[in-house]
């Protein structure tokens, strides 16, 4: 996922994404790697991302291979700080990488 996110209806946008992650983690056994390059997120998008990370966290707790790579522009360190905030409660591999 990449870009800015401030959807008018966050459930319409993130609902299917969250469902997909949920179902994939339940039905499949293959690893899941999330590639993110997110800039601006509004509050509902933040909630949605937290929900996705929660799903990854519990899958990680069950021994599933999951991970996040969050890329940011090295000219915008603020994005890295925000990614750190998301990472705080995650015990699965969560890399914050400058581009």
């Amino acid at each position, binding site marked *: 996922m990449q870009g800015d996110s401030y959807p008018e209806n966050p459930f319409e946008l993130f609902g299917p994404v969250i469902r997909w992650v949920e179902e994939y983690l339940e039905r499949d056994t293959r690893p899941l790697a999330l590639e993110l390059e997110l800039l*601006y*997120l*509004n*509050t509902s998008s*933040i*909630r949605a991302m*937290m929900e996705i990370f929660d799903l990854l966290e519990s899958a990680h707790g069950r021994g599933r291979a999951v991970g996040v790579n969050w890329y940011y522009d090295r000219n915008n360190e*603020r*994005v890295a*700080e*925000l990614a750190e*905030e*998301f990472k*705080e*409660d995650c015990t699965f591999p969560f890399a914050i990488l400058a581009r």
Partner: protein
Amino acid sequence: MRKDHADLEARIEALLGDAAYSGHPLREALDSLWQYTSQQLTRLERVSHVSDEFQAMARERELGLIERYDRQVGRMSRAARISDLYQKMLQDLNRTLREASYRDPLTGLFNRRLLMDRLKEESLRAQRSGHGYVLALLDLDDFKGVNDAHGHDAGDRVLVETAGIMRGAMRDYDLCGRWGGEEFLVLLPDTRYAEGYEVLARVLAAIRQHPVRYGDRFLSVTASVGLAVYANGENYTDTLKRADRALYVAKRQGRDRLVDESELS
């Protein structure tokens, strides 16, 4: 109490079991009473058991609710904190963009957009207060010659240096910007002609006295200035036109000089 109960139970069981009392009307009555009592007891026990079950279940559910509630509150406050950080980031980004939108990237001076806004503002202020402003257009002499002889990097160097010299020679509240190419605009708010003339003469002298170092060379730079005073009530574009014509006269008279609108024929 338990002990008493057990004793009573044993005594009654013994009496009811004793063949000696069989047929006695009190034995029958006691037997009925005893059966009734134990039935009631069973019922009571069942009721209290069910009630206990309910209590345990309710407590468990309550605990679950509290836990879930706490988790949601925790998530919400984290989301709010992250959201605040995003807002802060946008705010800073806005400030940077605003700053960039009114600065000339090469010299760091204000750009034409900001100068136009300030000219409008200052004109309105002058109309209200009756105190006019002095407007000057400053153009570097033979800038094309510098570019041709030493390249565009040298030209850029001259522009940057001149911008610094101009800023240093002016008062804090004077406004200086890049009007375009090698042309600068100077706006001296709440200033009379004589004062304005003095400031611009100082600027010209400073430019003349500070050759610009480029590599191991020193490039001497001069500039010409056209100066006009805002006439109360007029549109700033008219002031600008007079300054521009004065600048043209300065160039025609041989450059490196200051011409004001009174010299316009």
